[in-house]
C-alpha cells in the first residue's frame, strides 16, 4: 500500500482552501457514533478486526532486548486458547530495538515499526532525525513512526514541517511512513486538520494522533477530524492514507466505537490493518477477554491472559 515517493508528487497544500472545523459539531457527531449498538456477530467481527489492527508497543527508557522479545512472543501468540484469532499488525519499538524485534519475528508477517526522528519531542536537528531513521530502516524496520516538529508548526512555519516530512519520507525508502501529529500539543481541531493535510501532502502513508507521552492522546473528536481529512485527500488525489489513533484506547468498547467511526466516515476500504491501526498495548487483552466472553458466555479473570 505504501506509495513510493517518486509516484506521488508531493506538493505543499493550498492551506487557504482547507476547511474549518467546528468543535461542537464534531463532538455531537462523535456522540452519535458512540450510540451505535454493536451486538452478537457484528461485535465478534469488530473485536477480531480490532486485534488485527493493533500495534503492540513498548517505548520506554527501560526497554531491553529481553522485554522486546517478550512483546514479540505475545504478538505471535496472543491467546492460543482461542483458535482462529488474527495476529496483531505490528510491534512498535525504538530504533535500537528494531534488530531484536526483526529477529524475534523472522518468518512471520507481523510488521516491525519503529519510532524515530527524536521521538517523542522532535527537538533535534534534521540530520539527527534522518540518522535515527536510517538506523531503524537499516535494522529492518517495515514502518517508521515519525513526529512532526510541533515547534515549527506552532510558529506557523508550515513549510518547514512539510519539508521535514518530505525528507523523512525519502529516507524511509520502501518503509511505510506514519506521521505523528501529537494532537495533544496542537490545541485546536482546526490545527489538527491543517497538520493532517500538510502531512498527507508531504507523503505520509499514515497519519497518527499521538506519541502516547502527552495527554490527551488519541480522542474520538481528534480522530474524526483526521479521518475527514483523509477522506478529503482521497477525494482529491485518489490516495488512500491510513489512520492510527494512539494512546488512551484500552477498552474493547472504545475500539469498537473507533471502528464504527472509521466505517461510517471512510467506508469499507479502510477496515484493514493496511489502513487503520490502534497504537495500544493494553487494548489487546481487553479485546481477548471480550472475545472469550462472546465464545463462552462468561468473563474470565485477567490472570488468564498473558501480560507482556
Amino acid at each position, binding site marked *: 500500500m505504501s506509495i513510493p515517493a517518486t509516484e506521488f508528487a508531493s506538493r505543499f497544500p493550498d492551506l487557504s*482552501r482547507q*476547511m*474549518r*472545523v*467546528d468543535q*461542537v*459539531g*464534531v463532538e*455531537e*457527531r462523535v456522540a452519535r457514533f458512540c*450510540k*451505535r*449498538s*454493536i*451486538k*452478537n*456477530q*457484528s*461485535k465478534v*467481527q*469488530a473485536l477480531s*478486526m480490532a486485534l488485527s489492527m493493533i500495534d503492540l508497543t513498548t517505548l520506554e527508557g527501560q526497554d531491553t532486548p529481553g522485554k522486546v522479545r517478550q512483546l514479540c512472543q505475545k504478538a505471535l501468540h496472543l491467546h492460543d486458547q482461542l483458535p482462529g484469532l488474527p495476529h496483531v499488525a505490528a510491534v512498535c519499538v525504538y530504533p535500537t530495538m528494531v534488530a531484536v524485534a526483526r529477529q524475534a519475528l523472522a518468518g512471520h508477517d507481523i510488521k516491525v515499526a519503529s519510532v524515530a526522528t527524536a521521538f517523542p519531542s522532535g527537538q533535534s536537528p534534521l540530520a539527527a532525525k534522518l540518522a535515527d531513521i536510517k538506523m531503524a530502516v537499516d535494522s529492518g524496520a517495515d514502518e517508521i513512526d515519525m513526529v512532526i516538529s510541533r515547534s515549527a508548526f506552532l510558529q506557523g512555519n508550515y513549510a518547514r514541517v512539510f519539508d521535514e516530512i518530505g525528507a523523512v519520507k525519502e529516507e524511509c525508502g520502501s518503509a511505510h511512513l506514519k506521521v505523528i501529529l501529537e494532537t495533544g500539543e496542537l490545541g485546536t481541531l482546526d490545527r489538527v486538520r491543517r497538520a493532517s493535510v500538510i502531512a498527507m501532502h508531504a507523503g505520509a502513508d499514515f497519519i497518527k494522533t499521538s506519541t502516547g507521552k502527552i495527554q490527551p492522546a488519541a480522542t474520538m473528536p481528534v480522530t474524526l477530524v483526521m479521518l*475527514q481529512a483523509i*477522506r478529503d485527500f482521497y*477525494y*482529491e488525489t*485518489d490516495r488512500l492514507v491510513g489512520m492510527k489513533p494512539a494512546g488512551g484506547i484500552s477498552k474493547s468498547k472504545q475500539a469498537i466505537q473507533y*471502528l464504527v467511526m472509521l*466505517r*461510517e466516515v*471512510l*467506508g*469499507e*476500504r479502510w*477496515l484493514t490493518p493496511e489502513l487503520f491501526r490502534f497504537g495500544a498495548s493494553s487494548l489487546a487483552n481487553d479485546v481477548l477477554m471480550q472475545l472469550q466472553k462472546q465464545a463462552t458466555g462468561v468473563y474470565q479473570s485477567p490472570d488468564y491472559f498473558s501480560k507482556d
Partner: protein
Amino acid sequence: MVRELGKLDFKGTWQYAAAPESTDHVQLGDRYDLFIDGDFVAPAAGKYFDTISPSTEKVLASVALSSNVDVDRAVKAARGACRVWGRMKPAERGKYIYRIARIIQERAREFAVIESMDGGKPIRESRDVDLPLVAAHFFYYAGWADKLEYAFPGKRPAPLGVAGQIIPWNFPLLMAAWKIAPALACGNTVVLKPAETTPLTALKLAEVIRDADVPPGVVNIVTGAGETGAAIVEHSDVDKIAFTGSTDVGRQIQKALAGTAKKYTLELGGKAANIIFEDAAIDQAVEGIVDGIFFNQGHVCCAGSRLLVQESVADEVLGKLKDRMETLIVGDPLDKNTDIGAINSPRQLEKIESYLALGRTEGAEMYQSSVAVPDTGYWCRPTLFTGVSQSNRVVQEEIFGPVLAVQTFRTMAEGIDKANNTPYGLSGGVWTDKGAKIFHMTQKIRAGVIWANTFNKFDPTSPFGGYKESGVGREGGLHGLDAYLSLG
C-alpha cells in the same frame, strides 16, 4: 480540485447486527377509553378505531372515537375542575406538575418504546430527544407556576379557563407536554386531542396524570380524528385553542374562531432554509443538513427542507452529503441503530410519494440513498432534489418527509432573498465561521427560530413559533405563559 465525490464504499462485510430495544416492559392495553374527569370512560356512541404500528402494519390497540357528546362531557369536566385548579395555591399546582415530570422520567423507557411503536420514529430519537424534552417541559413550567407575577411585572396574571388543545402525530408526547405543561402551570384546565395515528402515549400520559393525583377534570384526553378536533374548536365553553398541525387546518380553525372571544395559538407548517456559506465548517454543516431534514423522517414542522448552499462549495457539500446519506440506516424504529424510522401513516407516505413524482415531473433531478428498506411498513429513503428553483413546487410546499430540495446562491443578499421567498417562516439555519454574518442573517431572515451552526435544537426555555403562514403566537419559554393567561 475535487474529482469525484460520493464514491466511498459503505457496503461490505462488517454490517451491524440487529439491536432491538426490548418491549417486554411495555404495558399496552387492547383497548383505550377516553380520559375524562379523572377516569377512563367509554365513548357515548361506543365506537372505537385501531391504531397501528407504521413499521409492522399491525394493530397495537383500539382507541375510543369521541363524538360531540364526549367532547362536551370533557369540556364540562374541565370547566368544573377550574374551580379547584384555578384557585389552588400556585405552589401546590407546581407540585403536581413536578410530580408528572418525575413519573415521566421514571417511565421514560416505556414511553420511548411506545412512541416508536405507535409513531414509527427511531428509538434513538424517542429515547434521547423526545422523552428528555417532555420531562424538561414539565419541570420548566412547574417552576413558573408560583412565579407568574414575576414573569409579567405589574400585571395580575389569571388563568383563561378551559384550554382546548389539538396536537399532531410527529411528536405525539412532546407536543402534549408543550401544550399541557404551560396550561396547567397558569391554572387552566385542559381538553387535549392527540392525533388519530398516534394516540397511545397521550393515553399513557393520562395514566401518569391519574397516578400523580392531579385533581379530576384538570386534564382530559379525548381521542378521534378531525371531527373530534372540530368539536373542541367549536365548543362554546372553551376559552382558548392551541393547535399544532398543518397550515390548511390552521386556516379552518382561524375561520371557526373568528368573531369569538377564544384566544388561540397556531403552530403550523414550514419550509425552512438551511443556508450554508462557503466559509462554514463543511463537514459539520453536512451533519446539520442531515439533522435538519432526516430527523424524525422529516416529519418536523421546522425541518430544514430547503438547502441553500453557496455555489462555490455546492459540489463538495452535495458529494459529502450523498456519502453521508449512504450511512443512514432506514428500518425498524425499535432498533437502536436505526437513523430513519417508518413514515407515520400510509396517508403521509402517499403524500410524500406524490411529491416525489411531482418533483420529477417538474424536471428536478431526484437522488435517493441505496439503503434497503423493509418489505412491510411505510418507508421512504432519504431523498434529494437538485436542479430546482424557487418556482418548483417541491421548493415551495411542505412535504413533511425525508425530502430535501437543494438550491444554490451566490451572494449573501441572494441567499436572504431565497430564504424569505416562501409563505412560511417557522425556522432557519445559518452555517458560517463568521459571527458577524450570523447576526446579519438572523436579522434578515423572517423566521421564528434561526439556528446558527446547528439545527433542530429545542429547549423549554426558548420560545417557538412562526412568522407569516407558519402560525400565530409563541410556545415555550416565558412567551409560552402569555398564551395561557389573561393579564389584568
